[in-house]
């Protein structure tokens, strides 16, 4: 018996229409596709909500304690031999708080990386990658949620820091820290937009590490290569800015300003382009190379 060549074919007729046709005819599939990113985002934000709320609540609680403690310890009517020690204790607590704040700022990235690994590299990946969403939608949802959470955390951490520094502001207001000059900043709309766009880069660079990790895991590229490439472009762009700026230092200030203006926007475009290329490569890797164990 040669079973290698012993092949049967079935002649059972198709009994029901193709479901895709049903979906397409009723417009259901299109609606489902349109809502997928929204749904993915919903679950991404849900994942961050609890741990971030706990971290931020703890941060604000400590900030409030430090604020009250600071106001008490730096009050004029508190004196005695232990005053310097108490103020030192408060200043040290403040320093620890600053480090804690930095951790809370980085916390969304830690959570993002944890989720990324869990959803794409563990058994959970079988479910994640079975839902009718494209690789682009998966990655985009994760990037957007991580980015929004990182931005929100940054703003709230800044507010918490300001809260903890209220005693210092009060001291300054009472003239205890000498006369302070107001800082004058001359900004135009272009500078503001540029600064905002430039501030987009660093969290994306951090998130790009995930892309590098995915590519390495699935033999797309060597470990961290993609992330290093993007980081390299970013760092080189800064050096290039300084270097080319110095080449033209003999030119008139107006021309230098113009070169600087053009240069910074070109470099920003290069950075953004590099990140976009990484996004494309990452989604392609997820789509083509992934093989869950």
């Amino acid at each position, binding site marked *: *018996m040669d*079973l*290698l060549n*012993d*092949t*049967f*074919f*079935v002649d*059972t*007729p*198709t*009994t*029901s229409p*193709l*479901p*895709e046709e049903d*979906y397409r005819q009723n417009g*259901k*599939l299109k609606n*489902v*596709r349109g809502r*997928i990113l929204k*749904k993915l985002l*919903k*679950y991404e934000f849900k*994942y961050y909500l609890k741990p971030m709320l706990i971290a931020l609540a703890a941060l604000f609680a400590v900030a409030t304690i430090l604020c009250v403690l600071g106001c008490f310890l730096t009050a004029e009517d508190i004196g005695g031999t232990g005053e310097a020690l108490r103020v030192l204790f408060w200043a040290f607590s403040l320093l620890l708080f600053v480090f804690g704040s930095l951790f809370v700022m980085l916390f969304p990235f830690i959570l993002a990386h944890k989720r990324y690994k869990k959803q794409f590299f563990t*058994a*959970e*990946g*079988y*479910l994640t*990658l*079975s*839902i*009718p*969403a*494209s690789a682009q939608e998966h990655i985009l949802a994760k990037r957007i949620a991580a980015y929004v959470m990182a931005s929100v955390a940054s703003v709230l951490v800044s507010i918490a820091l300001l809260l903890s520094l209220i005693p210092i502001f009060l001291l300054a207001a009472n003239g205890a820290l000498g006369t302070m000059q107001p800082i004058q900043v001359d900004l135009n709309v272009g500078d503001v937009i540029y600064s905002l766009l430039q501030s987009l880069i660093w969290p994306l660079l951090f998130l790009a590490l995930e892309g590098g990790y995915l590519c390495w895991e699935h033999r797309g590229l060597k470990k961290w290569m993609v992330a290093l490439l993007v980081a390299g472009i970013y760092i080189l762009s800064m050096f290039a800015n300084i270097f080319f700026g110095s080449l033209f230092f003999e030119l008139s200030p107006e021309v230098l300003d113009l070169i600087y203006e053009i240069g910074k926007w070109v470099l920003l475009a290069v950075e953004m382009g590099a990140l976009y290329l990484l996004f494309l490569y990452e989604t392609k890797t997820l*789509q*083509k*190379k*992934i*093989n*869950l164990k």
Partner: protein
Amino acid sequence: MEHLISCKGLTKTYGKTQALQDVNLEIPAGGGIVGLLGPNGSGKTTLIKILTGLLQPTAGQARVCGCEIGVETKAVVSYLSDFYSLNEGYTVREELDYYSDFFTDFDRLKAETMLRDLGIASTSKVKTLSKGTKEKLALILTLSRNARLYIFDEPIAGVDPAAREYVLETILSNRSENSTILLSTHLISEIEQYFDHVIFLRQGRVVLDGPAQKVREEHGKSIDALFREVFKWIY
């Protein structure tokens, strides 16, 4: 004639290892249980992963419901991996929400009824459930979809004989009408009676493909006996 699953020249290599070699298959729509049979390492999981869109073939083409494998086919294929994949951080209710949100064919009422019958509380955290309960939950979620194609990768391999019976009964009694089940296993004797169609895979190649009854008649023996004969040199 449209086929539910069609593979043409499907090949998958991992480095120098050929997991699938020129697989040609045509499985009709319209009901039935298709047994994807073969020993460990024969390419069953690789074929399933390709059909579910979790893996890309090196060469050839696979289609489900006439569509290339992708987002559209994922909407009509209900897949249960041998890992019983679940969102571990969720409660059972949140798991149902997740399925309701992403799968339009998910029948929540059916899932809730099955969960109630098994006494699985919807407020329980998935990670606190026992291994057996997790397996049952994953099975319920997979079967509560009114899918065109159900794919089960070794659903009875790691469970005790009593649980096997439960798993098989659940699969057979809860699948949606006109659906097709593709079930991979190497424990054939347990399930042979339910097969409508069988596919034998050996070293990444299809060595037999046909209606179960026709195979039995032509070879004059059970599928299990035939399987043992075909694969006796492998063990």
